[in-house]
């Protein structure tokens, strides 16, 4: 993980930049010219309660790179854990978190990125699921407009496991939320969803790489974004179906609304298929709000700002509706509505 190395060794030449194909839309090398000082220690006890604390049995806090580094779920156990990645100040920090859900265990992971300042933060997560284990990971990224955040999750699924993820972000100065999944097939199921709602000069990059290694695996992906002002959204989704991974069923959708002339969305959906008998599809649309639908709503008496908010909320709602954990789903809905009603 080069971002982590750049932070730990205070060597900006190790940051990925536009010459790296996978990072060309999220150039950190060009943005950060000087290695920031390491972040000052931060007392987790001094923090106010997090968004998801009330829903969780355990709250794990990683504050400026330090703190709880492990979440474990025993066989057959079911748990709801809040994981808070907190950044304060203008320094740099990196952290590793490992999450092990053993066979038949069930975890709801409610993860937040909470930032204040012009920090550089990297978090590496290793998430492993045993046979028939299940995880629903909901990520709410509330970074500072001046912050730079990189989150890199590596997910290992065992056969029969179910992994579902929804990443919701308001972006940052530069932000990359990346998920790499090794999919063993064997009737394991995967859902990878995302929502980005960006304004000002915020940037968010949702990157996923899924490798189907063997037969009978499913992947379902739906990412939607709304960008306005001079914001920039990036979606990179790659699904690789290895030779012999027959009967893979993979679907990827990315749809974005651009609400101003200077906002931008870059999307790269990729399917790399080396197996013969697979069912794979992807769809990608980027456009403006439907002016005809907007006029229709206004003709019925709905003022323009309300009509725009209603249509964009409905657009994003399709992703939020897929969140399984109901209280988290409602928090996500409110979060989205607040961002869309401007």
């Amino acid at each position: 993980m080069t971002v982590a190395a750049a932070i730990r060794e205070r060597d900006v030449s190790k940051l990925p930049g536009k010459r790296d194909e996978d990072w060309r839309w999220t150039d950190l090398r060009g943005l950060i010219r000087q290695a920031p000082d390491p972040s000052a220690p931060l007392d987790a006890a001094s923090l106010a309660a997090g968004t998801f604390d009330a829903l969780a049995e355990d709250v794990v806090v990683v504050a400026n790179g330090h703190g709880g580094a492990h979440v474990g779920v025993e066989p057959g156990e079911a748990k709801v854990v809040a994981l808070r990645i907190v950044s304060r100040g203008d320094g740099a920090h990196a952290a590793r978190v490992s999450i092990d859900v053993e066979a038949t265990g069930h975890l709801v992971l409610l993860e937040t990125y909470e930032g204040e300042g012009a920090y550089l933060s990297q978090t590496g997560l290793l998430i492993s699921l045993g046979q028939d284990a299940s995880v629903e990971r909901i990520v709410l990224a509330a970074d500072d407009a001046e912050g730079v955040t990189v989150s890199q999750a590596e997910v290992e699924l065992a056969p029969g496991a179910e992994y579902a993820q929804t990443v919701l972000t308001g972006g940052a100065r530069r932000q990359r939320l990346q998920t790499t999944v090794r999919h063993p097939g064997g009737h394991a199921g995967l859902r990878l969803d995302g929502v980005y709602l960006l304004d000002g000069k915020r940037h968010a990059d949702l990157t996923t790489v899924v490798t189907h290694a063997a037969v009978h695996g499913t992947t379902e992906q739906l990412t939607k974004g709304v960008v306005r002002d001079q914001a920039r959204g990036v979606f990179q989704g790659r699904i690789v179906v290895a030779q012999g991974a027959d009967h893979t069923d993979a679907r990827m959708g990315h749809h974005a609304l651009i609400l101003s002339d200077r906002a931008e969305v870059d999307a790269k959906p990729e399917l790399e298929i080396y197996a013969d008998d697979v069912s794979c599809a992807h769809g990608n649309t980027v456009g403006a709000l439907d002016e005809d639908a907007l006029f229709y709503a206004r003709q019925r008496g709905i003022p323009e700002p309300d009509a725009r908010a209603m249509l964009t909320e409905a657009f994003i709602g399709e992703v939020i509706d897929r969140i399984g954990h109901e209280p988290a789903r409602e928090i996500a809905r409110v979060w989205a509505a607040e961002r869309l009603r401007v």
Partner: protein
Amino acid sequence: MLSVSNLHAAVEEKAILKGLTLEVPAGEVHAIMGPNGAGKSTLSYVLTGRSGYEVTEGSATLNGEDLLALEPNERAAKGVFLSFQYPLEIPGVPALTFIRTALNAQRKARGEAEITAPEFLKLARAKAAELKIDFDMLKRALNVGFSGGEKKRMEILQMAMLSPRFLILDETDSGLDIDALRIVADGVNALRGPDRGMLVITHYQRLLDYIKPDRVHVLSGGRIVASGGPELALELEREGYDKYARAAA
């Protein structure tokens, strides 16, 4: 009620309406008939304020109030309702949510209290039953996957619930079979009253067998070129628009 005077309007700088004058008094139903391209849909969009339709001259008022100065939603709150020729699909917004949002927005604009949820549901159930619309359909995203006839019925349902003062029906009969047409027409006729005016825009006379107009106007070349009683519609059905197209040219 509705008073349109010497209205000129252009779309992408092409003149479509060229001095249209029309009076629809309260309590009356007027039909606008005309060949394709005469400006029928343009008239409905100009009256409701769709962007891209530029008024270059003339006026349009409802009960003396200048409609053209108002935003589309303000016109709706004043009571102008357009039943669209092609109703839009609104993905992700249940029909009930859409209609309640619209109704409350109109009420708010008029300084009235919002309708309560139980009152709203009671009203929706009653109107849906009158229009033979399955109530469960109102829980689905508005018009998404609905048939042409269902969409038109949904327009009439919204009309019945929003209770507008002035109704514009743009080609409401298109895409309807006879049974659906009868239901839609019954819905429209139920709204006829001394305080309401209606403008029924249609290419064919068929709809006027069900919604009987007080006056019929022929729109051709962007102007009203002939007006008469209901018999004019029958004459048009028999003889076509040719002589009016020539008159306009």
